[in-house]
């Protein structure tokens, strides 16, 4: 990999120590993926509330529980990824507020806590101490939780932005991608969870969210893929891993197809045919593909020697 220099330089490393391989691996992919689903469901629930609150019935608790589960998957993998797991508490006792990790951890904790309360309220119903009207409480709190979901889903982008070493990860793009990942996977999950409980109109609405999220995310990836290299040599070098016969090129395109291109096409097909199973397939593919897409983007900048 010789960028920037003249061919005549013919510079080659002849002695160096072993340098670290990939640091953030699939644990972190799991983290981002699960968090997207967890927060995405909350977004979708909120949209549903605003769009057609009547369809919320029977969905509040299961959706929130699903979100809660995914948020816990996210937390578990975040925790497992720590080399000193048992010191997790340091984040709360020695917080360092310039760190997106700190901010994210606090907010995610708060978020999951609120979700827990909402679920508890819904399950315990009339025995509830907090309120006599769990549903009203739920719907009111949902606003705040949704508000919180925004930074919770974005903070990873913050971490990636603070990862100064990884030129590929830029703040505006990553936050857009994080939100889109949430809307993509959230809508997909909603479609799968909602099943027959959702009206065709609502389904179609979530289908559109899914399709548009896929489209926008795909556009951003392609923009980076095509234009990223033109601005910074490091980005160019990193993108080599997903271009041509690059190490991650196949995986990258699998991700793009499964997460974005196929779901887009399927959503379009669904809109023409109205077949629910096509929409479900789009949803499943989007969720599965997202993992791949996230993983590739997480790993490739780590392959580049920094020194």
């Amino acid at each position, binding site marked *: 990999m010789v960028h920037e220099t003249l061919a005549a330089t013919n510079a080659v490393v002849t002695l160096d120590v072993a340098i670290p391989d990939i640091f953030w691996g699939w644990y972190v992919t799991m983290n981002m993926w699960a968090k997207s689903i967890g927060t995405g469901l909350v977004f979708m629930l909120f949209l549903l509330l605003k769009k057609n609150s009547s369809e919320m019935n029977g969905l509040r608790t299961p959706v929130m529980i699903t979100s809660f589960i995914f948020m816990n998957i996210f937390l578990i993998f975040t925790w497992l990824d720590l080399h000193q797991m048992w010191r997790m508490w340091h984040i*709360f*006792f*020695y*917080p*360092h*507020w310039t760190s997106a990790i700190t901010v994210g951890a606090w907010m995610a904790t708060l978020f999951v806590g609120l979700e827990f309360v909402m679920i508890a309220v819904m399950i315990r119903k009339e025995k509830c101490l907090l309120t006599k009207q769990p549903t009203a409480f739920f719907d009111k709190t949902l606003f705040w939780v949704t508000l919180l979901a925004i930074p919770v889903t974005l903070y990873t982008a913050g971490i990636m932005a603070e990862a100064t070493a990884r030129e590929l990860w830029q703040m505006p793009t990553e936050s857009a991608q994080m939100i889109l990942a949430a809307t993509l996977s959230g809508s997909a999950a909603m479609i799968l969870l909602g099943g027959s409980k959702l009206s065709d109109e609502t389904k179609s609405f979530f289908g559109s969210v899914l399709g548009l999220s896929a489209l926008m995310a795909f556009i951003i990836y392609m923009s980076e893929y095509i234009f990223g290299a033109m601005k910074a040599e490091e980005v160019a070098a990193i993108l080599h891993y997903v271009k041509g016969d690059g190490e991650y090129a196949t995986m990258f395109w699998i991700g793009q197809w499964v997460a974005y291109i196929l779901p887009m096409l399927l959503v379009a097909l669904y809109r023409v045919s109205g077949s629910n199973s096509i929409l479900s397939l789009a949803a499943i593919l989007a969720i599965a593909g997202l993992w791949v897409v996230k993983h590739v983007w997480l790993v490739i900048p780590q392959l580049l020697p920094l020194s």
Partner: protein
Amino acid sequence: MYLQSRRTFLKGAAFSVAGVAIAKGVFATDAVAESIENSKFTNTPDTISFYPNQSEWDNFQELDGDDWKRGGIERHGVASAENEDGIQVNNFMLVPTVCSNCEAGCGLTAWVNKDTMTVRKYMGNPLHTGSRGRNCAKGYAVTSQMYDPDRIPFPLKRAPGSKRGEGKWIRTTWDEAMSTIGKKMHDTLKVGDEISKKSIMYHVGRPNENGFGHRVPHSLGIDGYNSHTNICSAGARQGTIQWANDDRNSPDWANAELIFLQSSHAADAGHYFQQSAGLIADARKRGAKMVVLDPRMSNSAGMADLWIPCWPGTETALYLYLANRVLHEKDKNGDDLVAHDFVKEWVNWDRLLANKEYLQKMVGYGYISKMPAGDTYEDFIELVKELYAPYTKEMVIRECKLEGMEHKLDALWEMYIDAGDKIATYIWRAGPIAHRGGWMIARSAFLSLVVRGALRGDIGGTSFHHWHEISVAGKGDKATVAGERPAKVDVWNELAWPPEYPLSSYEMSHILPHLLMDEEWQEKWTKKGLKVPKKLSVWFPRMYNPVWINPDGFRWIEALKREDKIELSFNLSPTWSETNWYCDYILPVGLAGERNDQQSTPSKPEQRIEFRQAVLRVAAEKMGWKAKDPTRATLEAHMKYGLGEIWEESEFFPNLMVHHVDPDGSLGIRKYWASKKDPSRAVTVPEYFDAAMSLLPRLKETADKMYKDEEFPVYSYMRDHGAWTEKTNVYKPQEEELKVDSEYVYAHGKKYAKHHVKKDQFGALWVEHDGRKHSIGIISDDKVLAGFHTLSKKLEFFSEWFAEWKWPEYAIPIYPRNESEYKKMEHIVTQVHHSFMKAPNEFALNTVFRLPYNIHTRSVNSKHLMEISQNHNPVWIYTKDAEKLGIKRGDAIRVKVTDTVSGLDSGYFVGMAVPTEATRPGVLACSHHAGRWKLKDSVSVPGFEHKLGIMGVGAPRYDMTNDGKVGTLKPVEGIKPRHDVWQFKEYNKDLDNIWWDGLSGAWQNAVAPSHPDPIAGNHAWHLKVIIEKAKADDVIGDIYVDYENNFKVYQAWRDELTRPLDHTDKLRRPQHIKRPAVPLSNKAYAVEIKA
């Protein structure tokens, strides 16, 4: 201060929000702040020093680097009774010692933790004026060598009933070993005949001390010293002997304008490596230029102003070309470029012109066309002008194969001339050790300095080491009962100095096993009347791994296994090695910080000594500990402080001699080792070294003042300082005036009655003593000057004695001028000359170079050095050569060795090819540092709970076969992460992270046959090789050696190229040149050979 720290704390606390942290913090931090304040430690010190003041060395406190990882004193304060959680403070005693990883002998300080009595680290010694407190990677690695998990913890003995090399060992004691060995030596010497005095051999590798080792065989009255030097640097030494009768040159790097390197220094390794590197850096900071002649891009070449990749072995042509131009050209002002003042006064041209017979010969050889017109200096200049005229630029381009590099030669010329007489070089290994006639490279290199006046030993130029080195380690006689040096030895050992090699620079060590096993050769010389030993009764190497580092390793194994050839053997070695696998005893002696030696490094124009010490013993003694037996103090200390039963030579030998070799004094040996103070016991380290080092007058004066109350003031001074510089700015030493009074001339510490001093026609002053003629000085402009160490007292352009000793055609710097002379002058044409390379897969193999972070076979006990190098030794091949042969990076190739004298093949090794732009076309390179092997991972010693690991961080395991004719090695398993460490467990807890396997190199030395240079005697290292892609079953690391053929190769070089002693000879060797290391009597020198 208190307030400030507190304020700092509060500032820090303001950033923490969590209440608990604050509450806990405030409480803790008061103690923290106080603990800092009550200490000498602060994050914002006023000064930052390289080393503590020497006055603080006995008691120096430093925070611990590992414990600091908890966040340092700002978070935890300094450890104290009140603040137990604080950062740990180490109570250090700094004990000076000397690095032993290469011969540079840089100063070290051992940072002994007084609470645990362990060495936390070794750093440099700022009082050592050569190394100036600095060290290279190998210096810092002394710590990991000391706490090597596979250190040999106690003396080992070959298990009774087992054969050498079977790898069965039992634990023994130093006392048992001494009594067995001592008795064998006693019984041998008791016989008292000539053979007995040739039957004990002390074989030393790089000794890193100045004379103690020599004293061992000397005091035994035997010719029994053998060194490794003929595989090391003897070629260059031969050239130096011929010019100056000195052993090596000694540059003033720091003040030079041109650093003219052939051996590497600045960036590689080289002699006195890091000291030279530092001094060269000083010169380069001032703007000095650096040129490197090397077929391989060494690190030095890679950073030099100019890299000239001559075909190896042809450098002579280039040096003679420089001389030619200097002789013929003028400078800008129209003045001669020749430094006439110097050449006229200090070169022995006068003797050449006076020797008509020799001049006739020169005409006969075609060197000159006619006899010089007269005897004047101008006639000499005319002569050399003609002599060197053939060495033109075109000739150099052709001979050195520098096509397309004319511009480099031009640049070299500019730099060389611009530097004036400030040219510093160190002619050492490189070409001179690599080639047949390599010594001529040294010879001609010096000529290029001589003509410019750069060999005058003036500021920025080059001088000779003799004046810059102090050797007193062998001279502690005053502390012994004898009180004087042992007498000269009366025998001459043909095993060390065979009659074929009378001029060999050093012992013919690399063919010792051959000589021992070459019964035909033994017969031949016995018939001619010499008493040639057919076996050795005791052979003991020290700091030497001959099996691995010599050529023809299987021959060594063969010899070492033969109990009829070597009756008893023991290796003084702290570590496992390929050699001790085949010995009877392995006696673990101490490393750099575990033994006592005086060393002296002539790395710059000054005179200095350094003192190596057993640091744990010294620390303990300073803290009040006393050994039960003062003659075994080091052993006792090492046992007490957990290092193991590690002893050292300077206590071992005196005890061995006094109590075992000659207990009753009947052999006359005891008195040289028994203490004068208490004749019932051996001499102690303080006694001996105090006496030896007291020979330095300025040191003695200083020490006597500083340590008036001590019994051994000089010893005490050196114990506390580690180094002493006796004299600085030693320039132009040959011009020093000798003291002359009305009756005597004083020279070399002796005085000669004037009427015994004779002056010859060239102004040299001669005396006769001991039945030999010596020149002691030279008259120049009515002054009596010391002169050089040669017979003529001048630099010898014409080596008269060399001509007399059968080699007249090479008695002046010379080189074949055209192809027709290659055969005629074959003794000075390399065995890997390009004319021998016919097919595209035939190459010269450069086997001679160092990696700055490895030391021969000494790095394998350091996890740190092994981690850097991974025991990796690829075969370097020029990119385009590789392309042509279809070889890619990482490919396994067979490197087949073939001899250009006998035409015999030696076998092959399978190496890993790495194409590179860093070696010249046609020349491969393969280093010798890596490719170590072992046959077992560990040995179990009966009765000892742990297995003893063998070279577990650096040597893969191999399978070996050898049947007396063919030897093979095949790798079985590489180096693995270690979980089995029992020795120094805490220090080695990271061995589970070992990530290298060491399987990328081969033991190339085993394939190489011995190539004894017909004159200098050294092994000529480079090999002609034929390469091909590896066969299907080949694995990198495989070797296949036809060592029966190798035996014939040695014989061919010996019989086809040498000019042995014959019935016309009366002496074994010219007496005026050194015959290291034991002084021999005239009787020993005398020889009579039957026709």
